[in-house]
């Protein structure tokens, strides 16, 4: 049965998505989502991936508030209704 996830983007990315801050995807995992972005928003794909085709290390992926790396990273299977957020990493903390 096909699933639907909601993908949420920061404002910095919307210049590559015709102003869309979120879109739906039927991807079942992270590689599938990246492939979906490749297809639908090629300019965004260029921004979030480095020259080697890997996700840039300054981007974090969250699934329903949790860092995807704690859920198994690329092996995590998206569930129907998941909210997936792409957020650039930022600094902070005591020092």
């Amino acid at each position, binding site marked *: 049965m096909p699933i639907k996830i909601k993908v949420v983007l*920061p*404002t*910095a990315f919307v210049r590559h998505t015709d102003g869309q801050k979120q879109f739906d995807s039927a991807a079942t995992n992270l590689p599938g989502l990246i492939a979906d972005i490749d297809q639908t928003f090629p300019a965004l794909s260029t*921004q*979030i991936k*480095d020259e080697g085709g890997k996700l*840039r*290390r*300054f*981007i*974090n992926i*969250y699934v329903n*508030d949790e*860092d995807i*790396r*704690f859920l198994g990273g690329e092996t995590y299977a998206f569930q129907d209704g998941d909210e997936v*957020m792409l*957020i*650039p*990493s*930022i*600094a*902070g*903390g*005591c*020092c």
Partner: protein
Amino acid sequence: MEYSCSAYELKCNECGRRFGNRPLSGCPDCLAPLEIVYDLEAARGTFTRQAIQAGPFNIWRYAALLPIPEGFQPDLPVGFTPLIRAKNLGKRIGATNLYVKNDAVCFPTLSFKDRVVSVALANAQKFGFDIVGCSSTGNLANSVAAQAARLGLKATILVPADLEPAKILNTQVYGARLVRIDGNYDHVNRLCTQIADEYAWGFVNVNLRPYYAEGSKTVGYEIAEQLGWRLPDNVVCPMAGGSLIRKIRKAFNELIYLGLVEDKPVRFFGAQATGCSPISQAVKQGLDYIEPQRPNTIARSLAIGNPADGPAAAKMILSTGGWAEDVSDIEIVSGMQELAETEGIFTETAGGVTTAVTARLYAHGRISPDDITVVCITGNGLKTTDAISGQYREERAVRPRIADFDEYLRELDASTEPELATAGASLAY
């Protein structure tokens, strides 16, 4: 007094693109953090020993190499904290040339965050923000709240819900709007990036971050000046996001470039709590990336499981021949006690981490006893008293009579010696 500084602007660490001066958290192209770069050649005429020494005894003596707007008139004497020779602590851990840079007494809120916030809020005003904010593990919250109050700015501050009560109170007292988030610092940080995206607020550690981080450089400038315009052999620094340790090195490099100190290799050592040690683990494994962790330590001000500056900090530490270590919560408490008992400095848990790691670095031969080593203490123990509550017994009240006092002393002598032998003993690092 009005200060002028050298020309500066934002530059991407990765792709090198420049962005002038504006509130911007990362490179719009490659998403990497932005850094302030200066016209160092122009600074040769203004950033001199003589000019610095003629300035006030606070961070504004280094204004020529801080990103502050034209015409800025600071009136808070932040920084220029003591650098003390730590002979007693040195004796205990086998160091003969040990110094403590004590930002537990930094003005106005007793942590090194006062430095970064004063630079950040100068820029917040320049950029026209009426509301400023931050995500914080406590010290930053205190500092933003206090300095915003003085500048007449509104402050909205987000913190993990389980923050130390003293740090929460120390934010609320200044009239800041405090929002407790049900999550750890990384959750709070993520939310703040989204808020900064939606609201026109000046978040000191998001869209004002490049300016904010530059305030940390003043720790490095002060260390060099207080050592008589020379650099130490080693610096031991606590790490949360991994920013401070890099900025101290940036300060040293600028001083070398401008001829204010003699060029020499300085090794950098990072300190973390084992319960949140992503940068330390990266250093130990020689990784150029960070494996995020779920924090679980009493050192909450260092509890950042996914530090943005972590990869750069780990790389920098290794490139200088330094190292990183992490210590348990028990060792952290012991570190707090040792610094207090030997040098009269009551530091927060982060300082306990740094002290305990320093002891281990000497014990493991990572630092030679005679090296000039500076340990950076970044916050005050009065903010984290819960970490050491229960460590000391509650004394009974004594009647105001000399006979009762004599009796009390006899009781004390009889009962405390074995106890002290256990509780006060140094840990075997």
